[in-house]
């Protein structure tokens, strides 16, 4: 089956032919179905008309004879009732009846028991034809007590003349049975009392013979039923008078048969379709006059529709074989018509295998297949041409790719490759990475040392690819040349901006961060031109505050502002381009600043803020986030850690406390220990007081109430001074910005607060506040040697 289906699927000719034949078959079936239905109805109607005609004819004939018997009986009744007291006349009357109606079977004029006292219990004047003569006798006896017979009882009980159920009358002398029915009517006396019954019998043999011979179809037959359903005519003679139409239903219920029986009993006329002896039959039935009998003609469906069925079979066969023939020829014709297509397909395969110059078949046809062949030839030519062009384009592309690869090498070569690390340098260590999204990128970073200063920059050129890479190269060259003579970052940026803006015809711009780190002091001067603010990772993680300057290359007259920050020893400046925060995973979700901060915080916790470690952690996190998604933008990161230790520093310690004043004793111990180590125990008390004042201030006010936070206290001592630096990440607060307390006023007159910082100022020689990123940094310095001392 699957093979056949597969064959059909692969053969267009078979498929098209099947469709055509299928449609033709559907149309044939619909048309023939309608025709057959109509024809069948016509045949059925004809059968009905035919059966009805026969039934009507027989019924009319029966009625005619019955009427005659009824008329004769009425006349006899009239006579009898005129002379009810003359029993011997009854013989004459009964004999007369037969004389006048030789086709009648017999006639009885029977009386009630002992009606004629001198005649005894029985008196019935009975006449019957015997050969050509009429035999008239007295019919009642002990063995034939007529007054118990149906014919005698019925008219009196029904109180009207009536026909009895047919019965088989046995004639002993001839030993024959005759089927008869009797018309009975009562004889009444003057008082209306029933005194006897006149019985006129008719032989129904002629009727049964007539009905038996009714054969509208070769296998049809007729039946006649009495009131009680008894068969009086039936092809199976064993059933006649012995069985009723309901007999078989006593053992095996047959609803169709029972319904037919009841309909015939009720004297209905009609037709029923049913199964008889396993055959589908039509039964047409009609009552026979007033006898209470009913006649039916049973016609097997095969007879009625025999001719019709033969015709139908012949037509169906013709249609079937016609369709088969049609299918065969269609397949042949379509296969022949499609043969050039097959050759074309073969040639197409040859072409597909790479032989573009294969010779196509020459078709001298102007139909669709010819057109297809011509189109195919055209296509072949176009294909050869296209392939040639493609080859050249591919060669060009390979050349460009080679160039790009070289350009990438050159671009990477521009970037610093050796990164200073401890112990090569003791003041700073640097690491950077640049991963372009394409062969070449628009990100840049650079750094160099000059005059104990570190000059560095990171930037991002708008756009990607070759244009961006060219601008990047220019920007980097300009940075090198400008920074070689200019030390202030804002000036460097300004000059670069002008230089780039002048040659910027393509409206490209560069976000740029330029910083100059004074390596001795940790002072950082910087200028940010629209770049992402770097992170400072030291005691905490925070962003370096950046002014909102526009990127360079856009407005040559823009006045870029200079900013300054202090970088403590151990702090790492983490610079990056938006390729980091905007790195996207497969769902186009961005890495975002929050994750950068988290990675930085984790690195801080693990004390892995060394530049290479930090950048590797960050790269790992970004790659994990991006997964298999394609890199969307250049990714550049640079980390600079300031590690310079002051030469004269003889003490450097750090204490981190929670913002809880219960921790003050620890602070005091820390200060006392520092003083001891710095050799200034003499001023321990004052320093404790000043530091405690400053730290408690931070503990109380830096963070919102009930919010935990840290306070970092760093102590640094040289021979000539001791410095405490208090760092927190709370709300920006500059205690030095408060006005000096007017100590000349009384305590009541002074405003609340401000006394603490006043005290600190009094004790310490220098109090300095700065806000670095998210950190408040308060430095308290006490000179140990008087500036005036030698």
């Amino acid at each position: 089956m699957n093979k056949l289906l597969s064959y059909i699927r692969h053969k267009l000719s078979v498929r098209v032919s099947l469709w055509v034949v299928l449609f033709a078959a559907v149309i044939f079936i619909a048309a023939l179905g309608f025709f057959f239905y109509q024809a069948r109805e016509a045949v059925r109607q004809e059968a009905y008309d035919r059966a009805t005609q026969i039934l009507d004819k027989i019924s009319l004939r029966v009625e005619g004879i019955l009427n005659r018997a009824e008329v004769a009986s009425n006349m006899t009744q009239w006579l009898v009732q005129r002379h009810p007291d003359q029993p011997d006349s009854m013989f004459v009357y009964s004999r007369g009846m037969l004389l006048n109606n030789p086709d009648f079977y017999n006639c009885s004029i029977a009386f009630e028991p002992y009606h004629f006292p001198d005649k005894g219990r029985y008196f019935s004047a009975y006449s019957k034809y015997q050969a050509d003569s009429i035999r008239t006798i007295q019919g009642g006896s002990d063995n034939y007590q007529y007054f118990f017979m149906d014919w005698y009882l019925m008219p009196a009980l029904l109180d009207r003349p009536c026909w009895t159920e047919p019965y088989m009358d046995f004639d002993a002398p001839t030993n024959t049975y005759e089927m008869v029915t009797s018309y009975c009517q009562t004889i009444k006396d003057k008082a209306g009392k029933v005194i006897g019954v006149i019985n006129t019998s008719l032989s129904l043999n002629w009727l049964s013979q007539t009905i038996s011979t009714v054969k509208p179809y070769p296998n049809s037959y007729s039946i006649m039923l009495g009131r009680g359903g008894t068969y009086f005519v039936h092809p199976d003679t064993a059933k006649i008078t012995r069985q009723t139409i309901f007999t078989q239903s006593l053992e095996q219920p047959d609803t169709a048969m029972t319904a037919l029986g009841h309909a015939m009993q009720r004297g209905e006329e009609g037709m029923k379709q049913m199964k008889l002896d396993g055959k589908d039959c039509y039964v047409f039935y009609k009552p026979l006059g007033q006898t209470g009998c009913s006649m039916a003609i049973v016609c097997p469906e095969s007879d009625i529709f025999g001719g019709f069925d033969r015709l139908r079979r012949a037509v169906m066969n013709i249609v079937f074989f016609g369709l088969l023939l049609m299918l065969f020829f269609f397949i042949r014709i379509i296969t022949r018509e499609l043969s050039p297509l097959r050759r074309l397909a073969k040639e197409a395969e040859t072409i597909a295998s790479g032989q573009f110059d294969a010779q196509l078949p020459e078709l001298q046809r102007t139909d669709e297949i010819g057109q297809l062949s011509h189109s195919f030839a055209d296509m072949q030519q176009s294909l050869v041409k296209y392939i040639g062009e493609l080859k050249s384009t591919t060669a060009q592309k390979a050349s460009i790719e080679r160039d790009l690869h070289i350009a990438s090498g050159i671009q990477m070569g521009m970037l610093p490759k050796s990164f200073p690390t401890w112990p090569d340098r003791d003041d700073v260590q640097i690491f950077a990475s640049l991963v372009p999204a394409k062969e070449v990128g628009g990100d840049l970073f650079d750094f160099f040392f000059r005059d104990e200063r570190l000059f560095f920059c990171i930037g991002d050129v708008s756009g990607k690819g070759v244009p961006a890479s060219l601008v990047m190269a220019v920007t980097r060259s300009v940075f090198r040349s400008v920074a070689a003579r200019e030390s202030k970052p804002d000036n460097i940026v300004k000059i670069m901006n002008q230089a780039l803006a002048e040659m910027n015809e393509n409206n490209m711009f560069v976000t740029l961060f330029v910083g100059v780190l004074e390596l001795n002091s940790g002072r950082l001067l910087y200028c940010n031109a629209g770049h992402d603010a770097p992170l400072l990772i030291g005691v905490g993680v925070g962003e370096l505050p950046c002014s909102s300057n526009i990127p360079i290359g856009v407005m040559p007259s823009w006045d870029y502002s200079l900013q300054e920050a202090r970088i403590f020893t151990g702090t790492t400046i983490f610079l990056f381009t938006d390729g980091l925060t905007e790195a996207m995973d497969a769902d186009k979700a961005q890495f975002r600043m929050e994750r950068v901060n988290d990675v930085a915080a984790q690195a801080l916790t693990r004390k892995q803020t060394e530049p290479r470690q930090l950048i590797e952690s960050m790269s790992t996190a970004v790659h994990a986030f991006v997964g298999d998604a394609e890199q969307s933008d250049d990714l550049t990161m640079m980390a600079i850690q300031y590690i310079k230790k002051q030469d004269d520093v003889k003490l450097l310690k750090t204490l981190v406390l929670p913002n809880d004043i219960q921790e003050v004793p620890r602070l005091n111990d820390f200060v006392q220990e520092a003083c001891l180590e710095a050799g200034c125990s003499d001023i321990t008390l004052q320093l404790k007081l000043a530091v405690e004042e400053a730290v408690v201030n931070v503990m109380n006010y830096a963070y919102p109430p009930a919010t935990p936070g840290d306070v970092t206290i760093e102590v640094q001592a040289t021979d000539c001074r001791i410095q405490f630096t208090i760092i927190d990440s709370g709300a920006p607060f500059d205690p030095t910005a408060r006005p000096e307390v007017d100590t000349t006023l009384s305590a009541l007159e002074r405003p609340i607060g401000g006394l603490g910082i006043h005290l600190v100022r009094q004790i310490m020689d220098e109090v300095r506040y700065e806000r670095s990123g998210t950190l408040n940094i308060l430095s308290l310095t006490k000179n140990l040697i008087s500036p005036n001392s030698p």
Partner: protein
Amino acid sequence: MKRALYLFIIWMTAVSQASGEDGTIVFTPQWTAQAQFAGYYVAEAKGFYREAGVDVRIEHPSATQPAMSRLRAGECHATTLQLCQALEIVDGDIPLVNILQTSMNNAMVIVSARGKDPLTQRGARVGIWSVGFGQLAICMSNKDHLDYRWVRFAQNVNLFVSGALDATLAMSYNEYYQLLQAGIEITDKNVYRFCDHGYNVQEDGVYMTRQYYEQHRDQARRFAQASRKGWEWAVEHPEEALDIVMQYVNRDRIATNRVLQRLMLADVLRLQVDRESGRREFRLRPDMVQLASRLMHEGQMLSREVTYAELTDNAISE
């Protein structure tokens, strides 16, 4: 209608009377040939009578001729009678002996036309057999003040089917099925079964005049035993028994069929099983004799109560 049959019977009777003298028991069932008498046909056909050393000839009456009239006229020596008929006859001064009782239950029913309950049909025209079955129905009609008007008919159910009667008496094994066969609808509502209303009186038994019996006691006993054997064989072989019945039916050209006869045989055999003991007892029950006798006496159908002893001979009933 049965004139021809009547002529045939006359002819048969003439033959039988001639041969009755030679010790042959002429046995007349009380109706035309049918499965009601299957046991006797079996006994004859299977040679049980011959084996028992008794010569039996079965002769049927005509439809309008009571079997008893044949007995009375000496046309036969044994006949089947219903118990009530036997009581009537004994009361009429013809002593009878029951030599074999087959029926243990009453089979009579009343079927009403048009689906009506027979007990609501006061004054209805009810068909009754002209040959004299149906005594219990008359008792019941009187007792329940139904005042049925009895219409005596010869045979078959044509009168009822033609609508001339309001109801008809029927035997559950015979007319009842004929009615069904005529397409009459019978439900629980339009049938009254006497056996379920305190009239469960035995029916068919084989009787002889006491005079004949006294003279042929041994022959009678053997006849009864062979007949009983015939019935027992019919119980064991109902289809073969039916074949035999159909031979008798066909010989007498009785207008019936195998289906009806099969139903009849099954019902007759069912009626032979005593309700209380669940067995085929083949005996007259004194209590039923007493019940029938009392009912008929009360209904003034008997001048006196006939006793069980009057119907039996100890030698047989033991």
